[in-house]
């Protein structure tokens, strides 16, 4: 009954000869997003940075944010750089409130995220 989360995995060039994995989410980020977030994260290379693209997400609840935190925990263990972009101003505020910005930078859009990570 909840809208499912769809995740597509992209590889982009970082402009310095390296590569970045981009996880592009669409739909909802909620308690039913376990596989779309943590399942997909398991499958990506741990040796290059990861960007989380929220541009096409319009609903995120606290259970969904908990899954994002679990992904950051995994990235932290793997000493992997991780950042996000495409959050609305409201969800940038919500992510900041819960402290996520201490472990993952939030960028306005893909260009800035790619240049900054």
């Amino acid at each position: 009954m909840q809208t499912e989360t769809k995740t597509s995995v992209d590889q982009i060039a970082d402009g310095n000869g390296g590569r970045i994995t981009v996880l592009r989410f669409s739909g909802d980020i909620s308690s039913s997003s376990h596989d779309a977030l943590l399942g997909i994260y398991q499958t990506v290379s741990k040796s290059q940075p990861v960007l989380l693209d929220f541009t096409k997400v319009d609903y995120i609840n606290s259970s969904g944010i908990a899954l994002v935190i679990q992904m950051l925990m995994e990235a932290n263990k793997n000493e992997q750089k991780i950042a996000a972009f495409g959050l609305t101003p409201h969800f940038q505020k919500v992510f900041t409130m819960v402290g996520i910005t201490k472990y993952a930078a939030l960028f306005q859009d893909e260009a800035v995220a790619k240049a900054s990570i």
Partner: protein
Amino acid sequence: MVNLIGKPVELRVPSRMGYEKVAMGTAASVAKLMGFPDDRIEDLKTAIAEACINAIEHGNHLNENLSVGVTLSAHDDSLEVTVLDDGGGIAKAPPKPDIDRKMHGEEDPRGMGMFLIQSLVDEAEWVKAGNGKASYVRLVIRLDKESD
């Protein structure tokens, strides 16, 4: 601003995950009628979603024969919301989420709903009612208050 004082808007949704979005849609429409700015409507939507999810999950234990009740009362300078379930209410207030403890596995990654509610609205109060057979959260969001 037009005077909206009068009977509250009342909504009942089944205790199923996802139906919090119906409460969000209803609340957003009332807030828009009252003239709330868009950023405050977003705050209200998230607060109501979290309150409904808690009512569905912790209050009504996902029992679809039970409904979650939402009332929206327009006052002169504020919107008052109650979200009612058939459970016993919160046992004790959860700790403020600590991202460092979460990141180090010392705290459940969940447990952010009530914190978000409190952070996003101007007043939030959890009340046990009906001799342990009902509980509600009462939220107030003010028209004049700037978003934080």
